[in-house]
């Protein structure tokens, strides 16, 4: 019986954990050794998280029946507003 562990790694202190991959192992002891060897032996990680895949609560369906495009960022142009706001801010400093 093997368990799949999802492995997350942190490249340096303060950075966010990022998904690195997974290891299959008979138990947590084996998983730790395997994760160390695969995601830590070259000094590429400062810390690892090992999470049994079963413990992950997956969310995958995102219903958008009415095609609400205006909710997406691509329907919302912020470029002009940003420019305006920056000019305004620069003007303030001059005053």
């Amino acid at each position, binding site marked *: 019986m093997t368990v799949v562990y999802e492995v997350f790694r942190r490249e340096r202190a303060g950075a966010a954990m990022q998904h690195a991959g997974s*290891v*299959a192992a*008979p138990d947590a002891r*084996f998983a730790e*050794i395997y994760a160390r*060897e*695969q995601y830590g032996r070259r000094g590429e990680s400062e810390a690892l998280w090992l999470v049994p895949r079963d413990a992950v609560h997956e969310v995958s369906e995102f219903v958008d029946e009415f095609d609400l495009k205006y909710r997406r960022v691509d329907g919302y142009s912020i470029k002009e507003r940003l420019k305006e706001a920056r000019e305004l801010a620069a003007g303030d400093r001059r005053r």
Partner: protein
Amino acid sequence: MSDRVGLLLQLADDELILGWRNSEWTGIAPFLEEDVAFSSIAQNEIGHARALYELVARELGTDADAVAFDRPPEQYRSAPLVELRRLEWALTIARHWLYETADAVRLEALQASDDAELAGIAAKMAREEAYHRIHADMWLDRLLASDEGRPRLEEALDELWPYALGVLDDELRAEFVRRVEARLGRSQPDVDPVGRDRHEAELAELLDEMTSVRRTAPAGARW
């Protein structure tokens, strides 16, 4: 040859030859994760060998590659335990565990040595070997816990026992036996050690393959 060089060569040759033997599983270990882990352990062993050969080379006025590769088989100081070629997982785990257990006893003794350089390198090795021991221990537990694994592992341990006794000298052997018996919960047979006064036939084949690149490379080739 000084006693110090002799001792360093025992350690270095054990690590080099076992590293090579363990690397023979690369690509064909029981599953992918184990393949990576066991190959990494093999690389560590060879790294330890290199550090030790460098100390020897300095004393002999040569370089580590020359010490590692340019000796005839009879001048190697490795224990027969590490020379055996056994591509069978139970035997591999049995040897791995027996060797790591013996090596721990040896490294502890060396860390207490008056020779600061030797004590230092033993301490560095011990920190890496700790992971090898965790790996060996968990495999031992795993195989002992399974109906198929237990008899196969026990048979392998029995077969290798005289060889395992030959890794350490008389002074350290008793402590090794004590640890093995405590861990396995049984008393081990009192048999004659297969020690460093002989080599297995497989050693010459291994050295032939291991040194083939060095022997055919033009002088002064750099890697």
